[in-house]
């Protein structure tokens, strides 16, 4: 029986006060299991990014609870929450956010380094993950020498190098051409998703929908039902 990775209910999040108040999340509930690759899709301004931030402990909701692997993350202190994110969640950002002055291997090793692992060992481990994403020969290059698709793979390697249980991908194909985007998500589905990992993808790129195990529609701050389930 699949275990629950993410369990959120009653999520409400608004910005501003009085007449300027905008409600980004309106009583959102979501559940995702390990082994699932869940897409949250919807138009710009529908609340996808806000939801992602609330689910990962980055943005505190005004109401509602978020349980990640059974832990109520908004009941944790700031330091505990930071430690939890570092240990359990991997992030692939829309713009990658790779450090241009660090080599590819050093960029990938960052989560390990942040967890006080030895520098040399972290780099060696990072090189293994670069091998997994097919960039072993690029380990000593700086990100500026890599193509967009390669940078995205580096970002993925960085996100999974510490073997997180939950992987968050924010608009992973926004900066890529169509073929590369499809190739990247195909790779993630085949090589990164497993029964001990849950992947949450925010996107509005319908060319990569085929790789989702489930797609949730977000509209005007509300999650609509599952559009597709292939888990």
């Amino acid at each position, binding site marked *: 029986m699949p275990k629950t990775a993410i369990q959120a209910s009653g999520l409400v999040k608004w910005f501003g006060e009085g007449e300027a108040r905008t409600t980004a999340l309106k009583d959102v509930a979501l559940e995702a299991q390990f082994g699932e690759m869940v897409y949250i899709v919807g138009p710009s301004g529908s609340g996808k990014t806000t939801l992602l*931030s609330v689910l990962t402990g980055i943005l505190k909701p005004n109401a509602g609870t978020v349980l990640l692997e059974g832990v109520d993350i908004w009941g944790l202190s700031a330091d505990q929450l930071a430690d939890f994110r570092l240990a359990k969640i991997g992030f692939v950002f829309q713009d990658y956010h790779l450090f241009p002055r660090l080599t590819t291997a050093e960029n990938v090793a960052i989560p390990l380094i942040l967890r006080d692992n030895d520098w040399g060992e972290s780099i060696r481990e990072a090189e293994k993950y670069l091998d997994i994403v097919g960039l072993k020969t690029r380990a000593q290059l700086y990100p500026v020498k890599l193509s967009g698709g390669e940078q995205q793979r580096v970002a993925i390697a960085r996100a999974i190098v510490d073997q997180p249980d939950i992987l968050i991908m924010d608009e992973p194909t926004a900066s890529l051409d169509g073929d590369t985007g499809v190739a990247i998500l195909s790779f993630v589905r085949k090589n990164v998703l497993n029964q001990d990992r849950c992947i949450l993808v925010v996107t509005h790129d319908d060319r990569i929908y085929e790789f989702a195990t489930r797609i949730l529609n977000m509209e005007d701050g509300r999650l609509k039902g599952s559009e597709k389930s292939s888990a």
Partner: protein
Amino acid sequence: MKGILKLAYKLLVNDQAKFSALLLGITFAVFLMMFVTSMFSGVMTHASSTVINIGAPVWVMDPTVETVSNSVGMPDYVLDAVRSMQGVKYAVPLYSGGALVKLADGNYQSVTVIGLDDTSLYGRPDLVEGKIQDIYAENGFIVVRDAEFAKLENPHVGSQFELNDHRGVIVGTARVATSGLYGLPTLYTTYERAIQYIPNPRYTISYVLVEPKSPNDIPRIKQQVEALGYRARTKEEFMKRTEDFFIYKTGGGTNMLIMTLMSFIVGLSISGQTFYTFILENLERFGALKAIGTKSRDLIRMILFQASFTALSGYGLGVGLCVLLIYLAKLRLPSYAAMLTFGNLAIGFGLVVVIAAGSSYAAVRRVLRIEPFDIFRG
């Protein structure tokens, strides 16, 4: 090095353009600060050269004396009175004054003449040529072999000159710890000969040099001298008084302060601005690190490490550059008045710490303000 600090180090030094600009700014600022304060220290040391070279622990003088080179003559009874004071082991007179020497080629040269107590020769210099007892010989003078020595046409034992229509003969050459400030050669002779050869006002004792029975007697000696209407100052107090005169009454201190402040402001603005730009360029990545799970205090540690590393490297380079320049200058001008003291180093270090703190303050505030949510929003 801890991983997170090595990460900070690599982020800093791998951005070679910014790191170089930061280093250059701080190095230049430290160099200027150190150089200005070193010059001032050098000048101060040279200004107190007579006090240092004579080495007496207590100096009795007229209350109006502000620097050792501007003595005011005291009557002979002061010497007798000091000798009879409680706590005084012994006291001797010292003459210190200027004179004009006519050289063999007919040229005139200003000199400083030090007249030592005839009986004890207290405060005599180390001789490198000749015998000290020859100072008692007819017209005997000892010349100091320092950077100004050549102005007396490189005299040797037996060289003659004319001083106020009196014949002078060099009977020895000596070395001293510090040469004078005003670029004048120094001649040592006996007190009696000095006041005999050099035209003087009625009172001829420039200073009474006192050896106390013990350091504990100094306060009591001071009180007794003050009751007499004069002042007794320790060697250190006299040097400090000379220093204060140059700092507060000549504009030298103000100039040094202005130069040091300007160097500090230049350093702070260059490094502060460059460091802040460096942080701004990496702001989103710092935000990404926050999102990944880096604690704010770890980000602060990274920034402080980067600022401290740059500041300390710049400090080392700046001090090194200053030492090199002083060394090169002293090769050419042996009495070049610049000296690095622990005090200068401490002042420079303190200002560099302020530069590092100032540079990192704005950066830390900026990094702490960034929300990881902004990173998701792009």
